[in-house]
């Protein structure tokens, strides 16, 4: 037996959260042909099927593009600080499995040694419902990084499209159970397993000193689109917004692809050229992060390639690394 919910039932669920004053986000058509994860104010805006992957990721519901950390106010030479906190509402987020799978990965960096409660508060307040995939495109490579079209990592419940506007619901946590309590019907229909994209690359050993960086990443424009749309990229800047009388200190998204990212005050820049910055991104994902925290910093969503104006992306660079290893095999 399985539990099923109709598309109308999913919209009712979303409407119920909105009526309660909670937040709901998910894939939504922002304009013709552009699907993004967005906070929605009407459940009719949610898309549950009919697309491969939104053009962004769900990380912004946990790690916003712009997060006020505290406000400051100057009273003469006295400074008054006021803490900022994430909004105290629950969130319901509909996501692809490759986006949800980024969350347990990001938990490591935001909690090692000291905890970033801005992230943790949002994480605790959120129920993630994943929409298992039933199609893929040329950029999808979840199966090459140990995930798949119905990966459960980071999900509180997984939905499988059964056709005819029905979805099988498989809750994976108490949060997921609670979200769907009394909203499903028993059924003998179950989802047909879907294999997802073929394995496109065997994860190669990523080396710091390699000619591949110059060769494979010279086209990179340094725009940062890969990082901004990546579910796992999490670099940020801390800046003041305001003036000498008052304002806020905020955490804003940043990217290792920008030339100013590592520029020293002296003018020295350890990553002075774009291939070095690309190296940092790939090396971070496949060497640094797993060395430090265990999991790799990539879920194979393919957004980096979909959004890259120069046709790069993680998969292409991994393939280039794999090819360079093959070239250098001893005869």
């Amino acid at each position, binding site marked *: 037996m399985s539990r099923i919910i109709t598309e109308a039932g999913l919209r009712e669920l979303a409407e119920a959260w909105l009526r309660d004053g909670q937040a709901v986000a998910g894939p939504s058509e922002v304009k013709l042909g552009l699907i993004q994860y967005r906070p929605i104010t009407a459940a009719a805006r949610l898309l549950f099927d009919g697309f491969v992957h939104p053009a962004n990721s769900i990380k912004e519901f946990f790690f916003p593009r712009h997060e006020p950390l*505290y406000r400051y106010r100057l009273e003469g030479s006295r400074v008054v600080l006021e803490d900022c906190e994430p909004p105290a509402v629950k969130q319901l987020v509909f996501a692809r499995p490759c986006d949800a799978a980024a969350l347990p990965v990001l938990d490591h960096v935001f909690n090692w040694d000291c905890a*970033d409660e801005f992230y943790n508060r949002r994480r605790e307040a959120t129920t993630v419902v994943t929409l298992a995939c039933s199609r893929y495109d040329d950029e999808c490579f979840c199966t090459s990084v140990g995930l798949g079209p119905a990966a459960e990592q980071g999900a509180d419940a997984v939905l499988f499209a059964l056709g005819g506007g029905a979805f099988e619901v498989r809750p994976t946590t108490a949060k997921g159970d609670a979200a769907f309590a009394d909203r499903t019907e028993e059924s003998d229909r179950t989802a047909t397993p879907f294999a997802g994209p073929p394995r496109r690359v065997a994860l190669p050993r990523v080396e710091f000193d390699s000619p591949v960086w110059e060769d494979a990443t010279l086209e990179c424009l340094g725009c940062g689109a890969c990082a901004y749309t990546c579910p796992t990229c999490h*670099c*940020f800047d801390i800046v003041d917004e305001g003036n000498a009388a008052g*304002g806020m200190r905020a955490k804003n998204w*940043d990217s290792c692809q920008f030339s100013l*990212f590592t520029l020293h005050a002296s003018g020295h820049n350890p*990553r002075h050229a774009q291939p070095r910055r690309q190296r940092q991104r790939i090396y971070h994902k496949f060497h*640094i992060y797993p060395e430090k925290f265990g999991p790799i910093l990539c879920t194979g969503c393919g957004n980096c390639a979909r959004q890259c104006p120069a046709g790069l992306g993680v998969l292409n660079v991994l393939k280039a690394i794999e090819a360079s290893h093959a070239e250098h095999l001893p005869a």
Partner: protein
Amino acid sequence: MRNIYRPELMQVIDARRQTPDVKSVRARFLDPAAGRDFSFRVGQFGIFSAFGYGESTFNICSSSNWRDHIEFCFRKTGRVTEALWEIDEGDTIGFRGPYGNWYPMEEWEGKNLIFLGGGIAMPPIRCAIWYALENRERFGEITIVYGARTVADLVYVDELDKWAAGPGVRVIRCVDPGGETPGWTGEIGFVPMVFERAGVPAGNSVALVIGPPVMIKYTLPVLDRMGIAPQDIYTSLENRMKCGLGKCGRCNAGECYVCKEGPVFTMEQLSRLPTDY
């Protein structure tokens, strides 16, 4: 909610111009309890802020024995340091820290100490010098070689004389050729050459070398010729930082987050890291 990004407020008790573009600042915690609870080890850094402008990372250049206040020193080079340049006694600044690792002063006990600094790199050495002088009996001979481009670029000049007056302390000042003034009594030349000429005995020594990359590059072969092993040569990296907490993702050299596992490294450790600094 515990906010790891929120700074403590400090009151500036002294702001002093060291050179035409370098200032040193003394500051004290506004909250007496924060001041009582605060402790650090020499070599650690703080993230200092001018509200409305932002945060900058500097070494805490006072000795860890000084309980009344902390000090930092900076060159005016950007938005935040231009704002900090304007602060004066009584003003309020922000401080987060201490962050990072420190000089292993206990391991250095019983050894001769060689301090080699260039330009604005004297402050992160100064904290260790004062600490060593305040615990003088624990350390052997102390040699300090400090150079800058010109006489006007030397910082903490008044303290060089105090250090030189200590027992078993040799202070060598130098400026780059052309940087001397008519009354200059120090050496003329670059730190590595002046240091080699000085013929400092190298046995049982550790060296702390901080300065511009070019100074470090030419100093290492001198130390090598003297027989000082890479694991006895220390430096402090200056990678750009924002959070200081191992999260924001910019200060790393390979899997080493300089804000957490650094900024203090031996040359032996650096030789095993990717050259991303």
